[in-house]
């Protein structure tokens, strides 16, 4: 009975989707708000990347909500998963082979540089705080993957995370007190296409990148720990 109702639901869902794809405006010119952003987005925010202009300029407070969702997930993971137990020599996995260890040592500086490049050029080229933050998290987790006996410094991680989150809200509050709106752009827009342009958007993306990187690296390190029981 359960299976029958499931298949009935799936059939109805498929019908709904096939009707929906018939009326989706594929190939049409953009919607009215997309057209408005294309016409005025560059001159209003100063960012060459219009997706960055939407994410941080027009919908900055949504990005703050997104950051708080990630923070809640990482904090819950840390509360549930962290056992606080140091890995003994017997329970730890053995080190990886020569190839993975050498690749980890060689890739670490390259990954940090690539992540910072993606974060800082978020308003000029594709990329931004979230993507660069993921790369930074992977870079700081890679030594743990190659040598499981090393540990990660959780205090520094939470310090970086707290300071960058406070920086995001601080920039927003300065805009609120000076210009009357939360996350109102502060600095001059500069020349479109240069590195120091688009007002405060690069600073906001730098804060987002550091926060996401620290959170996700802490989450991965917590997942990598051993259980206390039944393993």
């Amino acid at each position, binding site marked *: 009975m359960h299976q029958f109702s499931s298949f009935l639901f799936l059939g109805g869902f498929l019908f709904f989707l096939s009707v929906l794809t018939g009326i989706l405006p594929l190939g049409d010119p953009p919607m009215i708000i997309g057209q408005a952003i294309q016409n005025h987005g560059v001159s209003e925010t100063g960012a060459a990347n219009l997706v960055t202009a939407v994410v941080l300029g027009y919908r900055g407070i949504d990005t703050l909500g997104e950051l708080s969702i990630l923070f809640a997930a990482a904090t819950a993971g840390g509360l549930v998963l962290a056992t606080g137990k140091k890995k003994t020599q017997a329970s730890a996995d053995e080190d990886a082979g020569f190839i993975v260890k050498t690749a980890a040592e060689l890739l670490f500086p390259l990954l940090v540089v690539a992540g910072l490049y993606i974060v800082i050029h978020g308003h000029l080229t594709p990329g931004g705080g*979230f*993507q660069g933050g993921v790369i930074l*998290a*992977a870079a700081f987790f890679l030594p743990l993957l190659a040598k499981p006996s090393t540990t990660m410094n959780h205090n520094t991680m939470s310090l970086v995370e707290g300071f960058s989150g406070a920086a995001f809200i601080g920039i927003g509050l300065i805009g609120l007190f000076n210009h009357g709106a939360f996350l109102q752009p502060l600095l001059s827009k500069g020349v479109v296409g240069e590195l120091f342009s688009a007002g405060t958007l690069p600073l906001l993306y730098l804060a987002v990148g550091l926060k996401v990187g620290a959170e*996700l690296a802490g*989450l991965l390190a917590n997942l*990598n720990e051993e*259980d206390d029981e039944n*393993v």
Partner: protein
Amino acid sequence: MIEWLLFVIVMIMLAGALMAMLMENLLAATVAASIVSLGLTVIFVFLRAPDVAMTEAAVGAGLSSLILALGLKRLGLWKLDVPSTAVKADAQEDGKS
């Protein structure tokens, strides 16, 4: 001509999704789920969305499979279906499974 390449990639995505649902071995199912985001990256690049493609490449191909692999290791579900020292012995068994 380019639609044939997209057709092959969509087929790879659908096959990966089906295999992720149908395979017994959970490690292989995780790999199959990462194949879906692999095809999705190419389609996002074709749809002129380089930001979304980069997010999908970083999150879907890198971080998601990292999280799922570490979770599998911690759940104790990493068991391989076949011990790799006895691959030749169960070549006959594969027919019935």
